[in-house]
């Protein structure tokens, strides 16, 4: 194939991916329910809408402790002892977008599609 053809193909892929990425970043999750997973297992499901008091969850992985901060508005990785700290730098999870990931400690915080009943006080989904 000609180099020019390749440039056109690759430019198109970049544009399509940029549009997809923007729409993912600005997407709104249908529910405000987040799931916290470690090693692929569900640790807790929380409905952010029904969280009435701020709290923290501490998870321990292979590379130390991760502290997750939960409030009525958002959820974030407040601190972590993992080597890269990319999970902390991800920032707040509010309405949708990409999940918070900590690869060293294998933690994922993501919005869930289902809308199950949540505990009125803690927001914990039963």
């Amino acid at each position, binding site marked *: *194939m000609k*180099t020019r053809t*390749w440039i056109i193909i*690759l430019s198109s*892929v*970049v544009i*399509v*991916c*940029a549009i*997809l*990425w923007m729409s*993912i970043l600005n997407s709104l999750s249908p529910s405000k329910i987040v799931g916290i*997973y470690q*090693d*692929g297992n569900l640790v807790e499901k929380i409905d952010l809408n029904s969280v009435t008091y701020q709290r923290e969850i501490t998870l321990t992985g292979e*590379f130390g402790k991760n502290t997750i901060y939960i409030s009525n508005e958002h959820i974030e990785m407040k601190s972590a002892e993992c*080597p*890269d700290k*990319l999970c902390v*730098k*991800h*920032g707040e999870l509010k309405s949708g*977008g*990409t*999940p918070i*990931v900590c*690869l*060293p400690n*294998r*933690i*994922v915080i*993501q919005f869930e599609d289902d809308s199950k009943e949540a505990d009125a006080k803690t927001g914990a989904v039963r």
Partner: protein
Amino acid sequence: MKTRNLILTAIITALALVAFTIEAAIPPLTPIYGIKLGIANVFTLFTLYALGIKEAAAVLFLRILLGSIFTGQIVSFIYSLAGGILSFVLMVLLKKFFTLKQVWVLSVLSAVMHNIGQLLAAIFMTSSVQLVYYLPVLVISGIIAGAFTGLCAQLVLLRLKKWSENKL
């Protein structure tokens, strides 16, 4: 492997390791896993064209193994390996379709494949399919990084070809 190739492979591996270690010391641009220049790819590509498949495989896998040990990034080893295997296989299979002036295209394709491999490994390790949301940005970063490292390798290869032709 001829002695000449063995020595060249060892030297190139050492150079790739230096480049990898320096890059690992620079803080990441974004808080997203997998977005990096991957400057060590220049050495793998160069070796694939200048020496051969076996030599390039040695440069790549020795660099991944020693690089993880030297930088202490044990976590990234499994991801580098997953990305490395997939991108290398693609590179070897598709090499014949690209001229020496299209090395950068091959590099782009293999860099994108590298990022896909890493993402698949991350999805496997965390069992979270939602990580696929990171795919678009990883494809874009793979295209940019692959074009840059590919152009570097391409320029060196073209100069080397010119030089050896003039000599003869």
